[in-house]
């Protein structure tokens, strides 16, 4: 007989890990060295069907973060990478973070990190970002939009593998502050203000890269000069969720700013955008300014040698 009775062969351990939900999978990884090694062979959330996004809250006490699952379970998780950082975009399980003067991709479940070269910003306020594909994909394009000016939008663009950011700017912009960015239909980037303004940017065009539109919500008739978007947007999801909870996620004197994401709508007919939010503290003085991000719960194992 072989030594310990729990000496299961590596491929069996991988098979067991493969059948676990994300949180159980994370526990599995933390059990011991052998189990951790076995877990590296599985990437359970690459192939999983999509579920509703989870919410990750950070910025309270150092690296201590809270994670709220789609089943409304709350977990605490220690993520030093999020200490002092701010999330600019969340897409397909990856976060794009700004922290300590640099921009990097981060998967909070595996703590996989991919640094971007030559960070184009020094202060993340008034910035939104989006990326076209996971950072491991050859097609990944990252855009960071500076909307600090009232009349001009300044965009920095970085394609996979490159180290110099391209620049493009848009004048004659007439909407409110841009709050949400996304990549639409494998084609162009969309930037939404808090109301009905939409600016689009097509990185593959040589000219006419920028366009602006007004959004109209309609249930039936719409003008012939219009097109139908395949997404719908939802505002104040975090606020509603927080209010509906028996025990709120926020204390009365906490404020929070959240980063939205885009997920498939449960109807399967379109995508749904969860808008970014900013909630003031109910009572002053404010004690903590928290940050949060909606994230699709996926686990990516990326070798530590992986670079942009």
């Amino acid at each position, binding site marked *: 007989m072989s030594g310990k009775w729990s000496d299961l062969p590596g491929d069996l351990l991988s098979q067991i890990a493969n059948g676990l939900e994300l949180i159980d999978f994370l526990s599995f990884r933390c059990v*011991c060295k052998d189990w951790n090694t076995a877990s590296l062979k599985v990437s359970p959330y690459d192939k999983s069907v999509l579920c509703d996004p989870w919410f990750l809250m950070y910025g309270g006490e150092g690296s201590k973060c809270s994670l709220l699952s789609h089943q409304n379970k709350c977990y605490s998780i220690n993520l030093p990478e999020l200490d002092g950082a701010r999330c600019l975009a969340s897409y397909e399980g990856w976060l794009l973070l700004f922290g300590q003067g640099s921009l990097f991709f981060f998967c909070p479940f595996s703590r996989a990190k991919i640094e971007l070269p030559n960070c184009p910003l020094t202060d993340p306020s008034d910035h939104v970002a989006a990326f076209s594909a996971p950072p491991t994909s050859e097609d990944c394009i990252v855009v960071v939009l500076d909307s600090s000016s009232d009349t001009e939008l300044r965009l920095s663009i970085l394609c996979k593998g490159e180290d110099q950011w391209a620049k493009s700017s848009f004048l004659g912009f007439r909407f409110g502050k841009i709050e949400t960015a996304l990549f639409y239909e494998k084609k162009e980037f969309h930037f939404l203000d808090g109301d009905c303004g939409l600016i689009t940017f097509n990185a593959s065009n040589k000219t006419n890269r920028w366009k602006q539109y007004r959004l109209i919500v309609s249930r039936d008739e719409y003008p012939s000069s219009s097109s139908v978007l395949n997404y719908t947007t939802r505002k104040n999801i975090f606020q509603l969720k927080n209010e509906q909870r028996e025990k709120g996620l926020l204390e009365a004197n906490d404020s929070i700013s959240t980063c939205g994401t885009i997920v498939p709508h449960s109807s399967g007919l379109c995508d749904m955008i969860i808008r970014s939010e900013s909630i003031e503290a109910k009572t002053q003085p404010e004690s903590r300014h928290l940050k949060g991000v909606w994230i699709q719960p996926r686990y990516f194992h990326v070798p530590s040698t992986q670079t942009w």
Partner: protein
Amino acid sequence: MKMMKPYVWLQTSDDSIQQVEQEIAMFCPLICQEIIQKGMGSSKNCAICLPQQVSPAMLSLILDYCRFHQVPGRSNKERKSYDEKFVRIDTERLCELTSAADSLQLKPLVDLTSRALARIIEGKTPEEIRDIFHLPDDLTENVEVEEEHVDDRSVDDLLSFINGNDGGKLNILTILIFVFT
């Protein structure tokens, strides 16, 4: 005249040798290969030497499993209910059984026991798992998550909340359209 059922000789990890019905043993791909490709197991002198993971106790369990599933005409419900009861054994034996079934390449049983082991792990902290499986705490750094508290609202409430059930089914029809300005 009564026909003799063909038997096959198997040697388990404790070096003991036993005779088992061939058609049952053939369920295990490893034993099947030994018989067909190497002509082994026909007598006590050329008994099939089973992998070290297979103790006599495990062999007996595995043969029970094969014997049940080898009988034709059982309904899926019967098979499922048998499987459920079959893996209701203590974790130690379940681990041994998984390793033994794996070494004999008996995939349906490996799948069954792996799922049962996964169910033992579910909802437990790494520490609880280490206790159950007697594993060392030899990892230094990792992402550890800890459940804080459970909200009482049901999953359905939350899903409808995320998907915006406030407007009923109409919400899906609320499509945004854009007009060039």
